[in-house]
């Protein structure tokens, strides 16, 4: 059993598990942090961004004026943003049988994997994962296609040149695997390969293994997966949460008794407690609004935003900010808000029960009804005429490199009354803000990451007791910034196996058993004999048939009476000759009775020598050695076959025949 690690990112995993005869890809996350090296894509013409000076090395030897621009003291790539793909060279992606998706954030690289690689398999995901994943992909595509860039910058990626570039571009890794965004057609084609599954549904893969998604509590439809055969069980835990937010709670008990647990998707900000951050978010928002400023919340169009809106729904009234408008701007804003209301069965119990009242599960429906929350596909169109300040704007993309957020950064960045509140933990907020410096607007970092923290995960592992744990390398050491925090790492016994990008791990357990079925007529023919109380054995002579990873023992076909007429029958087709097998022996040869028997048969001079495994009997007159061991008996007798046979028969007297 092997694990191929195609991504080193702990929360955007992409691993391939070879288990029995199947090749299973676990998630295909897309690392979008590479976009931070690129210039923002402004929706509205920005004089500032369009007049940036190109970069030329100090000695003038390298001139990349067209590709690289200097902005706020840093150098950015002026091209359509690119993303870091999972490793494609580690194994042949066309051999992948299935892809299991755990949540909509971990499927963004799907088109890169399923298209143009010869992939012919199936993708398994839950319905919300598929639908919201589609929204996020479409949003990404729209963001990119709305602001087309004619050129693609590649010269800077040249190793010799990159080496000479200023940081952080100089230190960017795997730049050749970066790719620009996919197209809508690729999205559609990729998603057409998805087969929907429900929680706890058992899916057979070629009869060899069974995969089952379990609720993971992190987002709508998010799942952990169990991959098991009759005798082995691998659990894949990715992006799980034990907090009470909108999704169904995490199912833990089914993860018990795993041979291997692959653990990914823990919280990215282990020191930030989501409740505390939510409080920070609200109080900062309230302070800004009260002072007459606007609040910008760069966020994904699904996920934490639902909880934020719910929290604000209660908070705004209590803080007397009831009249402040919220704007949610995204090409998929409408669908996201609506979808969240229709996936009732995937929600937490509390929200599910609302459906029967009947009430919409999320209170943002009421915010929309009362006109407190308005959503627009883009800043163009209706929004510009209805826009009222001070307000709160939720919009993407959290990297601040593309999407409507770029416009708001340009619009509000100059006033210290305004505040930008970062809630998504995926990007370093300082890097995200880099091309907008100097910035007058206040900046607050409240990353809300509801995924498991180290404390929760160690409790979980204590509870479910997997034999081995496999996890990304960063989880096995304290965060680099806080080397003393040994509480912010996994400390397990035995220590977890860690992986990084391009690792290939041989998983530490050997398959020892396989289930084989006996056909009834064969079973009927068996003659069991009891060798000790409760244990019977029988010999079986049968033909083993293996088909679709199922193994069946069938009776040996009787040799067909050979019709005399077909003499020219090919030898190959003849049934194998069945010999009557020699009976199997069992039992032990007890020393004293055996010596007595020898004595009775006239062999009196026996010298007994004790060895590590048993005894050696030296029949001195006959010059014969009999070695009695636990699992073997040897009679060493030179050129005296009658004596050997006689001795053998004496030994056999003590053994049972099956």
């Amino acid at each position, binding site marked *: 059993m092997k694990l191929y690690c195609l991504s080193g990112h702990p929360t955007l995993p992409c691993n391939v598990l070879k288990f029995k005869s199947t090749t299973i890809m676990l998630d295909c996350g897309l690392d979008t942090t590479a976009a931070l090296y690129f210039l923002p894509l402004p929706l509205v013409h920005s004089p500032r961004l369009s007049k940036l000076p190109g970069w030329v090395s100090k000695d003038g030897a390298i001139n990349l004026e067209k590709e690289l621009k200097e902005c706020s003291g840093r150098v950015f790539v002026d091209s359509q943003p690119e993303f870091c793909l999972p490793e494609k060279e580690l194994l042949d992606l066309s051999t992948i049988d299935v892809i299991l998706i755990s949540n909509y954030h971990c499927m963004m690289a799907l088109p890169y994997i399923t298209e143009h690689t010869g992939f012919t398999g199936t993708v398994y995901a839950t319905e919300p994962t598929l639908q919201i994943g589609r929204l996020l992909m479409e949003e990404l595509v729209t963001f990119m296609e709305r602001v087309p860039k004619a050129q693609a910058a590649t010269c800077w990626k040249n190793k010799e040149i990159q080496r000479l570039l200023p940081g952080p571009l100089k230190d960017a890794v795997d730049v050749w695997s970066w790719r620009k965004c996919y197209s809508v057609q690729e999205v559609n084609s990729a998603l057409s390969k998805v087969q929907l599954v429900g929680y706890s549904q058992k899916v057979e893969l070629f009869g060899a293994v069974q995969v089952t998604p379990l609720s993971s509590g992190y987002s709508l439809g998010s799942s952990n997966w169990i991959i098991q055969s009759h005798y082995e069980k691998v659990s894949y835990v990715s992006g799980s949460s034990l907090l009470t937010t909108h999704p169904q709670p995490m199912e833990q008990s089914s993860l018990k008794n795993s041979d291997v647990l692959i653990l990914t998707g823990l919280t990215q900000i282990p020191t930030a407690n989501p409740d*505390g951050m939510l409080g920070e978010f609200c109080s900062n928002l309230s302070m800004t609004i009260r002072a007459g400023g606007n609040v910008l919340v760069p966020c994904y169009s699904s996920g934490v935003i639902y909880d934020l809106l719910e*929290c604000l729904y209660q908070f705004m009234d209590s803080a007397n900010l009831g009249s402040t408008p919220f704007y949610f701007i995204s090409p998929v804003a409408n669908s996201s808000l609506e979808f969240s209301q229709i996936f009732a069965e995937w929600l937490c119990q509390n929200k599910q029960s609302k459906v029967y009242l009947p009430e919409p599960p999320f209170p943002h429906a009421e915010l929309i009804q009362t006109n407190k929350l308005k959503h627009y596909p883009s800043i163009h169109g209706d929004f510009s005429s209805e826009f009222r300040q001070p307000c709160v704007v939720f919009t993407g993309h959290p990297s601040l490199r593309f999407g409507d957020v770029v416009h708001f950064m340009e619009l509000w960045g100059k006033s210290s009354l305004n505040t930008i509140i970062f809630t998504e933990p995926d990007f370093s907020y300082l890097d995200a803000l880099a091309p907008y410096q100097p910035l007058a607007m206040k900046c607050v970092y409240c990353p809300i990451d509801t995924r498991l923290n180290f404390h929760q995960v160690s409790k979980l592992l204590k509870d479910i007791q997997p034999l081995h744990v496999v996890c990304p390398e960063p989880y096995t050491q304290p965060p680099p910034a806080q080397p*003393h925090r040994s509480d912010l790492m996994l400390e397990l016994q035995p220590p977890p196996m860690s992986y990084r990008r391009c690792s290939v791990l041989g998983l530490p357990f050997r398959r020892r058993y396989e289930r084989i079925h006996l056909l009834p007529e064969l079973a009927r023919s068996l003659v069991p004999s009891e060798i000790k109380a409760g244990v019977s054995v029988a010999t079986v002579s049968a033909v083993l048939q293996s088909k679709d990873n199922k193994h069946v023992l069938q009776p040996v076909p009787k040799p067909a009476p050979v019709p005399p007429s077909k003499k020219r029958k090919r030898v190959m087709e003849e049934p194998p000759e069945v010999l009557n097998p020699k009976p199997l022996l069992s039992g032990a040869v007890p020393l004293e009775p055996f010596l007595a028997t020898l004595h009775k048969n006239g062999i009196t001079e026996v010298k007994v020598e004790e060895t590590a495994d048993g005894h050696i009997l030296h029949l001195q007159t006959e010059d014969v050695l009999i070695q009695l061991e636990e699992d073997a008996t040897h009679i060493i007798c030179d050129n005296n076959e009658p004596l050997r046979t006689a001795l053998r028969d004496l030994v056999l007297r003590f053994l049972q025949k099956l």
Partner: protein
Amino acid sequence: MDSDCLSLLPAVCLVLADPKQSPPDDTSLEKLLDWFKELHIQSNGQVLLQHQPCLLEFISSVCTSKTTDPAIISFTLKFTGLLAATKQGFNLLEEGDLLLCAFEREACYVCDLWEDASVRSGWLQGLLNMLKHQNALDFICGNGLIKVVLQLQNDRSLFVASLANQLLVHILNFLTSLNMTNGSDAVGSSVSSLRSDWVSVSSEIMNAVVEALRSEDHPRVLLGLRLLSLVLSQCGEPIRSTLWKDVLVPLEVLINRGSESLTQTLMTVLQAAVRTSLLGQSEYKVEELLEAMLGDGNRKGVFSFSLSLSFSPEISKRKATGIILLPLQCVSTQPQTEVETNLVLNEQLSQKALCISLLMQSLSSLAELAHTKYLFEDISIHSITSSVVLLLRMCSGHYPSSLLHINASIHLIGCCKVQRCGLDTLGALSFYEENVDLRKDIFDVLLDFLQSPDSHATVLKKTFQATVRWIAVCSPFPDLLQFISHDLFPVLEKRMWDLRWEVRDSTLEFITQLTAALNGNSGFTEALHTSGMVSVLLSSLADTEGYVRASAVAAVGEAVTASFHQATLERNSNLLEKALTQMMIVLSQDTEVFPRRAVVKAFTSWLKGSHPLTALDSSLSSVLSLGGNDFDWEVKMHTLELAEVLMEKTLTCCPYMQNVDFSEKTCLTQALSRLKDFGLFDLLFNSLFDCDRPVCEKACALLVRLRTLTAETADLDHSALVLNVCGNRWGDEVQRRYLKKQQAKASVCATDGATGSDERTDSELHCIKDISLPTILQILDLNDMQRMLMLSSDHVVNSPQSLMEDILSAAQQSEENIVDCY
């Protein structure tokens, strides 16, 4: 004694002695006993017994009956003891052989009743009640009851065992006190000076203690130790020293054995010994035992012991302090050879639960020492304070560069318990002036807690408390204002929009305290007003949570008070105006009581202030009328307090008290009519007839004061103080009483023969609308009202008479009750 009660007594005795009746509940019996106790104190037992032969009959019938309920037996034993507490009572009971019948050893065992713990406890309590004179002691000693008491020391019921201990101590004490008539409380006076039969009693008890301490049986040792510590703390000489001499050897053995389960009890014994005159004398070895007990601080449980050594000799105290500080130092200082040797402590600190509890003990002990401003000798207060600061930093995940206890520090991250305890201690350390040098570090760590999004609401509360203390101490330093306006105010502003109402509430409370603590500091007031905090406070008046609104009212009130000192009047008057408007809205419209109470309190504190506020005058009458008509009795009480202050302020402004002349008389009239304009009299009279007793009581007291004042000033201008008595509740009452009085007067006149005026008065009364204030005060029988109001509201139901009636009626109706139930 109330004759009604006495007439009921025989019947009650019959009911209680009747074995067929189920006994009244325990509370009734206890109440009855209390009443007898009171009677007993008031009169003496003989009188009661002599006049109430039924009592003797009751005792005799209960003691001889074998089917009486244990509760009744227990009651009777206690009661008999109570009656026998006087010599006369004792003799009377003795004559009837009732004492022996009740308390005699054999009598106790006759039936299974002794199995009931309440009987045993009643028996002991009876003896304890009785033990007030020599005869009682002779009775106990003579009948060999000591043995029974000593046995009961081991009783399975904790109450009985503890009562037995108390009785033994009482007996020992009693022996000494009898002896003391001719001796003095000096160590060394010996037991042998006691009467010989009593010597045997005392030595019997003391031997029992020594035997217990020598025993291998753990519970017995514990009992012995408990009795020992009781004797040490409650008995005088010579018992104390004699017993100590006897137990010294087994006690030393126990201490040196170091059994952990005995540590706590041994410590109690030593603590008791430390407080006696045994301490100074070398032959009693108290110091030695203390030293042995403290050991090297490695024994579990010595930490709490160390704390209570405030009476101990200096040396032990220093050692104890050292032990208290050990866990703290161990976690938060550099490795030291001395600390490193303390293996037990190190091991304890690496276990999470133990680590936290040790640190909490260490911190809270330190806080208590700091409250007494204890002088640390071996270690500087700076280093202690720095340790606490460092510990608090570790709690929020900061790591010093080198640490002895990485494990301990991981246990501490985010641990609310240690955080709260540490913050309390840090606050207490502000008592040491020398710590102000560390104020930067201290304010840094406090600010960290205030800023951290993960700080629990209770931790924030403690942080606020500590911050107020430190700010009060550091107020003379100019850098404080910088800290407040640049660091503290922005954090506070954010906290006022916290999601948790508890946090918003404690933030507002903190601002109130801060403003009060820095009252008169013009720099602070300036900062408070320029930072925009005041407008945030004003908007908090509309918070969704009632408690928060109440705190906001208090904070705004304090901010307004602070602004009185400020010269910039224009802005302040603006603030006052805004505050007044909003507060009146709260008082008239808020649905919860806390904000309304707070508003009235704010007005009271404004009025109390030394700065006269003319702006208040316009609102005062509305406050008095709204507050007086509130549904909440506490709002009404606060309004009356406001009225009291208003009265004081208005009436003392005229110096009529010194020497009354014409102008001052006018002044009083003016002052009273000013109060009338405020509607104060309406409030007082309304409240006088309120449904809540405390409100009436308060109003009555104020009116009595007014009456005295008006009575003292003879020729007050009544015409200026005329009140309209029509159309309100109190007016009707006044009218009714006025009428009654006039009629009484008239009838007196009639008997005197002056009938002619009768008709005129009647007709006058029906149309009377205006009565002057002094007249009203005279009409109302305020003294009588005050007397009635001072009786507690349950004085009728609480009387012994009603208790006995209850017992009787319960006995009569018991059968019906059973039927009723189904």
